[in-house]
């Protein structure tokens, strides 16, 4: 036995923080991303240009660098902000941009005739989105959204740059005491695989199902 009980506990704790951080980021990102996606498909030009600019800017900055900016930026407020808050904020911004792009694609994939039909029924823009477009777009968006969760979980590993102790960082801490890098990082990798693989498979299955339905 290479790991002591304490070390196994540290790994599991790190794994829990990885899951929590991805969940915080995903929930925050879903709320902000929905807003961005709606702005992006808006027919009001300045709004869609603004949203597109935001998305491209966020997607052009590496997540580790974003982590640093959020960490040092929050420190400017003068309060002692824990790394978790900085990391969660960062994951939120990151997820928002990617989810917005996924959802914009789904909204635009709803056939043109559906938009025209709701226009010809004189639905208000809100009714059109709420009753006709979004329900169909949601169905299309589920497989890629689940696929993005895998990316979100993997991306939380970048929080190590600001010292947040998630799964990768706890692996590194254990390595610093027992120095068995091959075994430790194999185990850490396996734990990530355990988290991500079911989601990957689910996403693939949902996509196949959607295709079979002819959507």
């Amino acid at each position, binding site marked *: 036995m290479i790991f002591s009980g304490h070390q196994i506990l540290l790994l599991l704790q790190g794994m829990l923080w990885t899951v929590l951080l991805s969940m915080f980021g995903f929930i925050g990102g879903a709320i902000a991303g929905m807003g961005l996606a709606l702005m992006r498909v808006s027919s009001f030009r300045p709004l869609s240009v603004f949203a597109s600019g935001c998305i491209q800017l966020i997607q052009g*900055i590496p997540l580790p660098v*974003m982590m640093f900016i959020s960490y040092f930026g929050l420190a400017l407020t003068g309060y002692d902000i824990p790394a978790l808050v900085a990391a969660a904020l960062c994951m939120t911004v990151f997820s928002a941009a990617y989810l917005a792009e996924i959802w914009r694609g789904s909204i635009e994939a709803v056939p043109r005739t559906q938009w025209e039909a709701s226009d010809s029924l004189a639905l208000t823009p809100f009714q059109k989105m709420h009753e006709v477009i979004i329900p169909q777009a949601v169905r299309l968006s589920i497989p890629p959204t689940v696929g993005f969760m895998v990316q979100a979980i993997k991306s939380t*590993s970048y929080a190590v740059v600001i010292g947040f102790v998630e799964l990768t960082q706890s*692996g590194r801490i254990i390595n610093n005491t027992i120095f068995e890098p091959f075994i430790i*990082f194999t185990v850490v990798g396996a734990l990530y695989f355990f988290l991500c693989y079911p989601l990957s498979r689910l996403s693939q299955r949902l996509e196949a199902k959607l295709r079979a339905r002819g959507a």
Partner: protein
Amino acid sequence: MKYQFDFSFLVERWPDFLHGVLLTVEMTAIAVIMGAFFGTLCAVAHTGKVAWLRRMVSAYVEVIRNTPLLVQTFWLFFGLAAVLRLTAFQAAVGALTVNVTAYSSEIIRAGIESIHKGQVEAAESLGLSRVQMLIDVILPPAIEKVIPALTSQFVLMMLASSIMCQISAEELTAVGGRIMLETFRGIEIYIVIAGIYVLLSLLLRLVFRGVAYVAFPRRRRMKAGG
């Protein structure tokens, strides 16, 4: 909030940033070229007739896609240090290549699978060998079709290369970290670096558009025609 932003370190330190940019570009360029090459090989193996090869590639892709790049990098750099003595820069390039090969092989595979069956049958009836068929008939249109997706994947990889500062491989983010330790201008430095990465990703997209323009004349003609 009474913080005074101070970007004066740029006056003295811009050669360092430039050096970092060059290293990031070098790292990215090597990984892109190797990733495209090995990715194509893996995609060909994945769509081929040899069952065990197919299964091996598929297992490799699943492992890489479901674990973070950082863990792969640590595994390669620290985990294999006993058998494989790599410098940090070599390990970084190696990890990026192993990572991006898996993603690009999946993208190219999708391209290969989208080739019409009639094309393959036509090539077979002309008596082309398997290699001729791949090089002359299947791969060019397959890669042409997926070049936008490949471009995005390589841009993502360039951005991900910033994490290589964690094994102290010299690149843009690592340079930033060092300058920060000397000037204590954390937020300003990372804002500058973020700006540089945004520019680099635009530049990389342009380069790929140029490559596609030169390599796929048909694409050019199709655009001009319709």
